[in-house]
C-alpha cells in the first residue's frame, strides 16, 4: 500500500466518519492512482471544513426559451 493510498483510506475510514459512497470525476492529466489518491484527499479534506455548504456554480448567460435559443444561433 502506497503512502497516498494509506492516507486517503485512513481519512475515509478512521476519522469518525463511516463511508457510504465515493465517486470521482478525474481530470485530463490523471495518470496514476497515487495522483488520484492525493488529489482526492486534498479535495475532500478541504471541502469538509468549508462552512458554506451552498457554493453552487452560477452561469451568466441569459435564460431563454428553447425557441429563442434556436433563433439566436
Amino acid at each position: 500500500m502506497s503512502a497516498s493510498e494509506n492516507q486517503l483510506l485512513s481519512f475515509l475510514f478512521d476519522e469518525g466518519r463511516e463511508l457510504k459512497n465515493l465517486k470521482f470525476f478525474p481530470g485530463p492529466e490523471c495518470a496514476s492512482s497515487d495522483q488520484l489518491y492525493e488529489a482526492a484527499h486534498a479535495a475532500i479534506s478541504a471541502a469538509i471544513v468549508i462552512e458554506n455548504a451552498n457554493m453552487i456554480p452560477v452561469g451568466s448567460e441569459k435564460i431563454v426559451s428553447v425557441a429563442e435559443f434556436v433563433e439566436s444561433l
Partner: protein
Amino acid sequence: MSISPLVRHFEGLGKVPIQLPDVVAEFRRRLPNSTIRVTGVNLPFSVLRGAHYNYVHTPHKDGTLLPVDVTQIIYSVQQPIEWQKLVVCKELIHVFDDTGIETDQPDEVIELVKKLSGELPKTIKSGGLQWFFDELAQYQAMAILFPFGLREAINGKKADPEAIAKKLELPIEAVNFVMADAWKTLRDTIL
C-alpha cells in the same frame, strides 16, 4: 432511483441554459432527508475535477448531535464554469446510486481509483462496477443539462457547436457528444 423523472422535469421547463441552483434544489426536494452540501475547493482540476463523498457521522463520545447523513458534492473552482456545471451535476446523480454500486469498502475505493486512473483495465469481467456507473453519470448529467428537445430543434441547422456550448454553458466536448448521431440511442439506453 431512476434519473428519468429529473431529466423530464428539466426538459419540461422549456428554458435554457439549465441553471445549476435549480438542479441542486430539485435534487434536495426529491431527497428531503439528505444533507447535500455543494462546495468548491481551490485546487487544480488537472487530476481531479470533482468528487461525490457520502458519509455518516459516527457518534461522538460527548453525545454531540451531528448530521446523520451528509453528501459532499465537491468541485474545483479553478476550472471554467461550464465544467463546474457538468461536474456538479454528475456528482449529484450519485445520490441515486443503489447500494450495489456504492463505493463503501476499502477494496472498492482502491479498485475505483486504479480503474479511473488507468492502472487497471475497465472490464466487467471481474470486480465491481463502481467505475462504470461513475462514468455513466457523466452522460446522465449531459441529458439533464442539454434538453433533448433543444438538441432536436438544433439538429440539421448547421449551428456552430462553440456557440451552442457558450450559450448552454457546457463544455464543447459535451455539446459535440450530444449532437452526435449516437446520442439518441445512448440516451434512450441510459435513462
